């Protein structure tokens, strides 16, 4: 029983690492640019497919990750420039627009890559089981994912809390009007933050596709998790994305293990209770 | 002795590091015309928000006609007779002028919950709303959309909304802001003709209007009351002059 619980903890944390990669971009996009991008899940999907193609072509997982990330940076830029820019801060329009974009990306992906679940090949040194202290066997890849997620998390945190750019970004999250008054080139800042969010999304598709596989519909399933992370953690907060991802990852793992038929309920009920008590989430701004 | 319409006891409001209102105590008698003046950032609008219930004070007590309303919500205070206008016109731009005033009229009655009859079924609403618009000279434009209104007319509509909630106390936040001199005169005249069973507190920057309408004046500076008295007393006070002309 204890072994089972430990396994679920690792499951939860490794899933949390993936969720953090995806949710951090989503929450920053809202925090800085006040944009709700419901195509973020589709970015994950497309990044995964492109990364898969890159891995097949090059034989390198790292190339796949970078390719997936860059593909979404490019597409994300075009979407921002030609579509999202036109709706400004109208959240309703943003949601509808990006849902439409997600429909297009999802459907086109279906027609290019078909309906089967595809797995991104994992590098051989990460393939297979790993023996943990205490004799537990666990997939090496998912353990590596935890470290990768933590690594990216630390990088992002350093960027956010310890650099000048991060200070500017935080100022933008706190008070968007003041940001333009400081003389910073807001347009360029937005492009940078958006590119970062896009890269994270595309990359997470490759990383996730290596153990969850990629399939039509994955874009909505993963997006829902990211939404719960962001609702619990608080829109716009990087720390919130970290804490939220851990909570969601662990709830999901234990929910599936203990109450498989109600796992979604186990996931969402705490979110609903939190909403009653604190609608802006753990680290979100009051409204 | 009649209870004061408004009594504030040591009202303070803190926003993070900023103490916007600092231990303000004041009393406004029933039917009085009180004007609140002070330089920008003195905390006048924040004080209004505490009185009307838009904001909860960090500490202190608000009493309306002797009853402690500090814990009551904004809409509850309106039901008890508090009406207010906003510094920036807060009217319903997508609705017609008539609908705006109808909303003001319905705010404190149970009619607002009716789902099974149309508004037109209640002719008294329409006629009272038209009267309300007439008082501010906007009756002719009753069915126009607010979007078509000039700024001056919107300020008039703003007044009409507050007046039609059946207020016993009116908080007017810079009713003349942004208006032309003739428009200011119009508003000032309307305010001066309001019946004495309504208590008035006004924030106003236009000294002539403020001092002409006021029974007494309270001067706020950096969240604190520095002077209170009749218009003449306040005008003559050197501290007030310092605050306004920069000898702080």
């Amino acid at each position, binding site marked *: 029983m204890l072994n089972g619980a430990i396994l679920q903890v690792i499951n939860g944390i490794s899933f949390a690492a993936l969720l953090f990669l995806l949710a951090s971009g989503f929450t920053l996009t809202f925090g800085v640019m006040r944009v*709700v991008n419901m195509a973020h899940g589709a970015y994950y999907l497309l990044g995964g497919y492109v990364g898969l193609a890159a891995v097949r072509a090059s034989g390198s997982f790292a190339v796949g990750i970078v390719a997936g990330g860059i593909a979404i940076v490019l597409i994300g830029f075009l979407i921002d420039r030609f*579509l999202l820019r*036109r709706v400004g801060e109208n*959240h*309703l*329009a943003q*949601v*509808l*627009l990006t*849902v*439409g*974009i997600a*429909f*297009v990306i999802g*459907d*086109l992906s*279906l*027609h290019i890559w078909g309906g089967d679940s595809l797995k991104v090949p994992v590098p051989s040194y990460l393939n297979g089981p790993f023996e943990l202290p205490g004799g537990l066997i666990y997939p090496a890849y998912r353990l590596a994912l935890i470290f990768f997620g933590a690594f990216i998390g630390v990088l992002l945190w350093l960027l956010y809390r310890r650099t000048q750019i991060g200070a500017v970004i935080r100022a933008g999250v706190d008070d968007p009007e003041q940001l333009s008054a400081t003389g910073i080139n807001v347009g360029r800042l937005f492009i940078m933050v958006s590119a970062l969010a896009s890269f994270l999304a595309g990359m997470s598709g490759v990383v996730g596709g290596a153990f969850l596989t990629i399939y039509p519909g994955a874009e909505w399933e993963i997006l*829902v998790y990211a939404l719960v992370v*962001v609702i619990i953690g608080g*829109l716009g907060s990087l720390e919130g994305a970290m804490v939220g991802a851990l909570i969601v990852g662990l709830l999901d793992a234990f929910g599936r293990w203990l109450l*498989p*038929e*109600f*796992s*979604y*309920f186990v*996931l*969402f009920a705490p979110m*609903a209770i939190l*909403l009653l008590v604190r*609608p802006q989430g753990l680290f979100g701004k009051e*409204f | 002795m009649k209870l004061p319409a408004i009594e504030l006891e040591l009202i303070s409001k803190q926003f993070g590091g900023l103490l916007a209102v600092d231990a303000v105590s004041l009393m406004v008698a029933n039917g009085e015309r009180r004007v609140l003046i002070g330089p920008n950032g003195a905390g006048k609008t924040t004080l209004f928000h505490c009185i009307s219930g*838009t904001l909860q004070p960090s500490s202190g007590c608000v009493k309306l006609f002797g009853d402690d309303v500090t814990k009551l*919500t*904004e*809409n509850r205070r*309106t*039901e008890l007779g508090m*009406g207010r206008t*906003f510094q920036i016109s*807060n009217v*319903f*731009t*997508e*609705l017609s002028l008539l609908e705006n005033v*109808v*909303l*003001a009229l*319905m*705010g404190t009655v149970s*009619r*607002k*919950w*009716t*789902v*099974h009859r*149309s*508004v037109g079924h209640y002719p008294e609403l329409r006629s009272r709303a038209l009267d309300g618009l007439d008082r501010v000279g906007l009756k002719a434009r009753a069915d126009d959309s607010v979007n078509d209104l000039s700024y001056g007319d919107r300020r008039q509509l703003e007044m009409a909304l507050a007046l039609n*909630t059946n207020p016993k106390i009116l908080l007017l936040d810079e009713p003349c802001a942004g208006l032309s001199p003739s428009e200011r005169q119009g508003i000032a005249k309307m305010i001066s003709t309001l019946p004495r069973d309504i208590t008035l507190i006004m924030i106003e920057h236009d000294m002539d209007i403020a001092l002409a309408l006021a029974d007494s004046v309270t001067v706020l500076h950096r969240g604190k009351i520095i002077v209170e008295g009749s218009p003449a007393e306040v005008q003559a006070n050197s501290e007030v002059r310092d605050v306004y002309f920069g000898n702080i």
Partner: protein
Amino acid sequence: MSRTGILFALFVLTFAILLPSLAGPFWIGLVTQILIFGLLALSVDLLLGQTGLFSLCHAAFFAISAYTVAILQVRYGLPTILAAPAGLLAGTLLSVVFGVSVRTRGVYFILITIALGYIVWGVLLRWSSFTGGDNGVTNVPFPSVGVASISTQTEYYYFVLAMISVCTLAYRVFINSPFALVLRGIKGSETRMRSLGYRTGAHLYVAFVISGLVASLAGVLYVYYNRFVNPAAASFPNSVEATLMAIVGGSGTILGPLIGSGVILGLRNWVSGFFELYATLIGIVFIVTVLWAPQGILGLFNHLQIRRRSS
């Protein structure tokens, strides 16, 4: 509603009444669908058009009422006279619970309704021992109440047409009511409404539950039409499509949701015959509508009318 609007509605109604004698089962089925999903779209627009709240969980109420009816009739053999009201009640009760989301506004409200909708979808999918999981519930009979029973598609079509006509008239009364005016006031400026004495949260909550009731009604009508229900009925794309219908037709209007339903479902049925990328097309309709025609068909029509009158 203007005179043109009433004439248009009468024209469409006449055509709808004559439809079964003009066209075959495919068209009867399609128009039944259009009417039912038009009602779902109406429930969404009751919130969106009147209060400004954008709810993406209405497919959940739709699905729960459909499933309740299906399970009660198929598995427990209950008659329509019990199953249908029970379905309506179940969906409405869910909206009473989900109504807590009204404590939030703007983007938070949107996100929370998305997540709530997913709870229902997920439970319907994963609790397969009770709901049938992916396979859903099949063999739902036509409704019958005592002597009055429906046995053909055409009879059900007329029943649905009658229900939707009644609902449309009721919606017209609702939109013109004091309560709806209050909702539009809240949509315009919630702060102003509070200072005028309104308990805005309470009004929004009641509006949410009323819209949940309407969505539940659509669900009941749906399950007797489709004779089958599966988790897709509660899916996010279903909620989103309902919203799109409301917007394409013209948000805030009485007939907009129905018109939007006709456009979207008509488009789907016409296109899927020869074009595989249906979802892409719907996505493009989203994008085009949001960017270039957010006021929808009726909105554009009204705009042109105003232009014509002033020139």
